[in-house]
């Protein structure tokens, strides 16, 4: 009797346990797919590189480069170089998580079957990693973005990031870009179309962008490796497939839809933190000295037909919000639809001018210089007549003259003006060449109140969990490898 009871009990129990496993099988996630196709990763990474450029990095470099001045006190820390504690979100959630990890996934997913995607992804990866190393110096690169494969990624030397280091297994940005170019020539099962927010699936435009990126990477080497820079630029010129028309610019688009807008528009014009920066009096002075106010009016508003600026680092009462000159439609659009301009025609022209001047590459520096100014003016929306008038009435501005250094100053100053809205690029140029000449802001602070920061400070959260991050952090008055 008891045996039967026990037997029955055992049967009941076994049935119960086995049905339990089924009952417990409810842990598949209804909220998120476990895998996604490349055509939803590419829009993310494309937007990511544009966002990283135009959001807080754009804000901070726009203030450091004195296009804008901060109205006390919201963004003033950038204005006066008190940078420590900043840029955590940019490092964490724009560059490494957001862009890089998804680029790594996109590359591994498409490298063997759909290289049209992996090619674009490699070009984007080279762009975003260049941004990281340009701003912070030595950064995680070769081991970065790969999850637990490298739980504490090494901080690669900037030289190795640019040029590679086979001993350490580092493929440099230049080679990565070239590999991306090669991928674009391969047969591809899947090809991007409307999911390519930048070029709508035009791989030839991506090739032009990649070659222009090579120019950008090469020109950064002028202080440290002229031969590499020269041969690379000459080879791009010879290949003649780079961005040489405004219509070919690598623009990350934004739209006027709320939550799809250019971050500079939301930040400065429409959002709850608006009215916290305006035109810098330094930039205004420069543009007036160059009689370049027609272009300035494309870049900045002119309330009541007057440019009203504010001085960097100032903490006295600012002009009323309505009277301030702020980013105009060229930078932010009428309702936030202006793109983030990452690699442009005027940029390649100025690079070729600088290269011709400093490295002796193919072509005439003055011609490239003038092409660059015209490309910028045209892009800004000046009429041909206005451009011609400017060239006629300002011959000393639009023609290179003087020593090599004088001419370099002219080129970089014009490039600086053209880069209005993209402070990251002009901050690179400044740290490479020392131009344009900047005056320290009032109330300068930070690591070294006597100099313009030569790099960004490292991020505390990274250091908390990655012992490879130099500790104590490198001060902002230490130049990066390619710096001057």
């Amino acid at each position, binding site marked *: 009797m008891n045996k039967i009871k*026990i037997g029955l009990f055992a049967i009941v129990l076994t049935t119960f346990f086995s049905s339990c496993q089924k*009952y*417990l099988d*409810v*842990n*598949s*996630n*209804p*909220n*998120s*797919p*476990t*895998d*996604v196709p490349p055509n*939803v*990763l*590419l*829009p993310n990474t494309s*937007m990511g590189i544009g*966002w990283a450029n135009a959001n807080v990095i754009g804000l901070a470099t726009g203030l450091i480069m004195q296009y804008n001045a901060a109205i006390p006190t919201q963004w003033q820390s950038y204005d006066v170089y*008190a940078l420590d*504690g900043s840029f955590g979100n940019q490092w*964490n*959630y*724009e560059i*490494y*998580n*957001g862009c890089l990890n*998804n680029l790594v996934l996109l590359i591994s997913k498409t490298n063997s079957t759909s290289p049209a995607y992996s090619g674009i992804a490699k070009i984007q990866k080279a762009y975003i990693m260049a941004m990281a190393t340009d701003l912070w110096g030595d950064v995680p690169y070769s081991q*970065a*973005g790969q*999850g637990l494969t490298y*739980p*504490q*990624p090494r901080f690669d030397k900037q030289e190795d990031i640019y040029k590679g280091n086979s001993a350490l297994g580092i493929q440099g940005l230049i080679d990565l870009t070239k590999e991306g170019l090669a991928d674009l020539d391969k047969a591809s099962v899947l090809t991007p179309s*409307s999911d390519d*927010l930048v070029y709508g699936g035009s791989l030839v435009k991506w090739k032009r962008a990649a070659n222009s990126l090579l120019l950008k990477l090469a020109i950064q080497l002028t202080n440290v490796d002229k031969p590499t820079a020269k041969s690379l630029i000459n080879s791009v010129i010879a290949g003649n497939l780079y961005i040489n028309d405004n219509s070919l610019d690598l623009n990350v*688009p934004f*739209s006027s*839809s*709320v*939550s*799809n807008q250019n*971050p500079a528009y*939301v*930040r400065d014009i*429409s*959002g*709850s*933190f*608006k009215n916290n920066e305006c035109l810098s009096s330094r930039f205004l002075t420069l543009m007036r000295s160059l009689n370049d106010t027609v272009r300035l009016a494309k870049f900045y508003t002119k309330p009541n037909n007057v440019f009203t600026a504010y001085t960097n680092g100032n903490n006295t*009462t600012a002009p*009323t919000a309505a009277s301030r000159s702020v980013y105009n439609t060229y930078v932010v659009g009428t309702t936030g639809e202006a793109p983030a301009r990452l690699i442009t025609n005027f940029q390649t022209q100025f690079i070729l001018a600088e290269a011709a001047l400093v490295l002796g590459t193919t072509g005439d520096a003055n011609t490239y210089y003038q092409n660059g100014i015209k490309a910028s003016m045209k892009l800004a929306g000046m009429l041909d007549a206005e451009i011609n008038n400017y060239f006629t009435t300002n011959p000393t501005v639009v023609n290179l003259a003087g020593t090599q250094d004088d001419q370099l100053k002219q080129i970089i100053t014009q490039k600086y003006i053209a880069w209005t809205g993209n402070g990251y690029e002009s901050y690179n140029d400044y740290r490479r060449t020392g131009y344009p000449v900047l005056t320290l802001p009032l109330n300068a602070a930070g690591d070294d109140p006597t100099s313009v920061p030569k790099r960004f400070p490292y*991020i505390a*959260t*990274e250091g*908390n*969990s*990655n012992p490879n*991050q130099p500790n104590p952090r490198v001060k902002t008055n230490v130049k990066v490898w390619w710096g001057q």
Partner: protein
Amino acid sequence: MLLLCFFIALTHVIAQTRTITGKVIDEKGNPIADASILVKGTTVGTFTSKEGTFSLKVSTTAKTLIVVATNFTTKEIAIDQKNDISVSLKSSSNNLDEVVVTALGISKDRKTLGYSPQTIKAEALENKGDNSLLNLLQGKVAGADITGASGSAGASTNIVLRGMSSINGSNQPLFVVDGIPISNDLDQTAGTLYGNQPANRAMDLNPSTIESINVLTGPAAAVLYGSRASNGAIVITTKKGSGQKGRVDISFSSSYSQQKVYGFPKLQNSYGQGSGGVFSSTSTSSWGPAFGATPTLTNGLITSAATNVNGINYAAGSTIDYKPYSTNLIDFFNVGNNFDNTLLINGGDTKNYFSANLGSSVTNGIMPNTNFKKNSVGFSAGSQLTNKLNISGGVNFYNTLQLGTTQGNGGNSAMFALWGVTRSTNLAYYKDNYKNLDGSNNWWVSGRDNPYFASYENPITSNLIRFIGNLKISYDVTNWLNISYRLGADAYNDRRKRIVAIGSTQASGTGRVTEDIFFRSEFNGDLLINMKKSNLFKGLNANLLLGQNINQRTYQNATVTALSLTIPNFYNVSNGTNFSSSGEYSSKRRLVGYFGQLSLGYKNYLNGELTLRVDQSSTLPKKNNSYLYYSYGGSFIFTEALKLNSKILNFGKIRASYAKVGNDAAPYKLENSFSKWSYGNNVASFSFPYGTVTGFGASSTLPNPDLTPEFSTSIEFGGNLGFLKDRLTLDVTFYKTLSTNQIIDVAIPTSTGYDSRTINVGKISNKGIELTIGGTPIKSKNFQWTISANFAKNRNVVEELYPGVTQMNLPGSYFGGVAPSVVVGQPYGVIVGSTIPRSPDGQYLIDSTTGSFATSITNQVVANPNRDWSAGLGNTFRYKNLTLSFLVDYKQGGQMLSWTIATLRSNGSLDETGVDRDKAHILPGVVSVGGGKYVSNYIQIPAQTYWSNLGGIGGGEMAVFDATTFRLRELSLTYDLPLKNTNIIKGLKLTVFGRNLFYYSPNCLIDPEVNTQGAGNIRGLELQSAPNTRNMGCSIKISL
């Protein structure tokens, strides 16, 4: 197998019955009506009549009766051969001998337990000027840290027992009502630190329907509930039928109270709007000229250009009407009020009972256009269908409504805008004209909504409907074996609507409607097989409980966000043209548990208990989803064992217990996942889709297919002592808990491409002492004075995180530079911010050129929200029918980072900023003079610079304040009308009460008992939320 033998060995006991009659009287010989008589170890029982008599059929094996009556000491009577028993009960304020409801609703004799539950009775919850259950526990439970979010209507309250231990999971105790676990979740609509401070769900309960609350502070007490009770449990028993034969008791209670802002910072009224002593119409600071200063162009009081101040247009060259508005800020707040009504109907006879309740509570908040309404109706009943079969159950329906507005630091937060109102701002003008003729926000500061606009035009509403139901069937197979099944369900649906009006400075000025719908449900089934045997061997009593538990919890949050609205004042999502921020999240988790508990008692003085539980969870990988945990403990009543019949020490017990509790993971931590991507922060953000193109990205947290359960172990020992016939009782507990193998999303370097990975890691310890003292210093026929006091001290340390990781931010939203964190070697939840550099001897370093503090060092621990110790003291004086009671409590230590004070300091509004403003100020600290030498700071700076050094929002240590507080929390005076039991009206109680009547916090300029997050793991942050209130009111309770 052993257990099974035990089972079989007992099957041949044969049951017979006999009838026992008797009478229950008090110490003076008066009959006690409605006392419950229960055969120990069974559900067989009855209640006494008006004359105190009872008659009960019991089995011949029944050995002991338990006699319980409200306000009397519970007594156990041995029933040997006698069939007629007279029981005399002592009236009592102590609780050493009583029966307590422990885990799974099992009643146990308190003195046998190896741990010490704390019991809060109904009278401690009634008429105390608050209708939030958790607020009513403040100061009454040793080891409970209870902090409300703020004084705004319906704001949540955080409760933590014996310190925080879980980094990613909840640290809230499990809430159990009549044996059914219920939700005390807090659903946030607008981020953890920015929003309208929604209610935690325990607030749905009506405190007037509660008979008692047992607080099981340690895991030992709670192990039967399984994983979720590892933070302790709040076991609530609701009022049930009286059991009086054929009688129906009706009681109606009603209370009205008013709430006034209390703990508001003191402000200066000597200087108005401006900066640097110069008036500025655009300023949000009060650093302008002194009131009464001669208007000049230089001091800005004569305008140089046309300007608008306080709604008045001034032409160039005119004189500003410049004067103080000394009450402008405080006038923003209303006098709140609360009107509470509860109807209780109880009835039944010896075999059946029923209970019905109806409750309504309306609170109009101190913030304009805010309120909180609770409606509830419930019914429960039970019946002894046969001698062996009992059935009982109940269902409660709740409808809770909240109308709130945004608080916190952000452009449409009323409080954020309010703290930027200057001393010369005519807020009354902005009240009457909060919007322009076109409907847009009228405020002089760009990017911020007028606080009235925020309150009236940007409301957040919540409309919650909730059902809690339970059903229990119990069958006495034999007189020693009972099998029961209990089914419980708790489900709610909360429809929220968050509006940003067209014309607000937020949402690009084009408005936003968010329809945010939360749904939660929990189903719980418990099978209990209970075997009891007295005198198994010589003097050995045994009780074996076997059981099985099935639990399912589901959650869904669907959010539709409509942007770019077109039609004004039409706040329906159909008005939107962009829905890109919409989304949904749902989860389901299941758990099956098997448990057993063996309790042994020897001769009423030696008791031991062993509990085992095995859980299987859906959230863990299959290979690791079963886990075993256990507790054991015992107690020794030495006064009884050693027959110490001392008149001084009448009761003495020592006890000890050990528990290990396992816990599972959150759902969906095992697999890779991708989600729709967005970039940005509160300044600017981007989210897909972009037009018709969508973008996805990999989850920032790397999954872990090898997760194992987390465990916390706890050891506690203590004792209970009763002196002078329990006139003085003492209960002390020492405990130590260690939480290990926690399932944490541990921060990893983001350069890996991911910010965290789910992993089993970490170690957090809590150790402390809990002490409760009860006493009756004076006891006479007409006058009685009773005291209950408690003390608790907890030391919490984060001992380990992840190798190489010394610091992690707690999950939740927070502001950059102010990060609630776990830091190795520090207590849980310290705030990481920035500190001022110190000289070698610890003084602030001053910048020798500016006279300001040297550049702050970021990433430093600035505040520790954990208090050093806390104590509460309740006193009740009863003279005839008049009862006066008050509760004071004291919290020593703990720190709070206050953005309200920081803001009011840097903008020159605070009283202290007006003192000696025209004189130069010198910051405390030293100036380096080179060569490692320092001199005391001598650099004079203006008051404005001085106070902006000592203020300003951010993570600066200057915004951190010591939260030490003494508080007169409750005061009430009750008159209980002497009415005869035969009248139609049998009882009438009138009470006047006050709550939070007085507090003293010597080191904090506002009431530190606020916490912007409310319920949750982030504490010690006051990020511009509403102030606290002082409540006063009166109530009436009528019994029929």
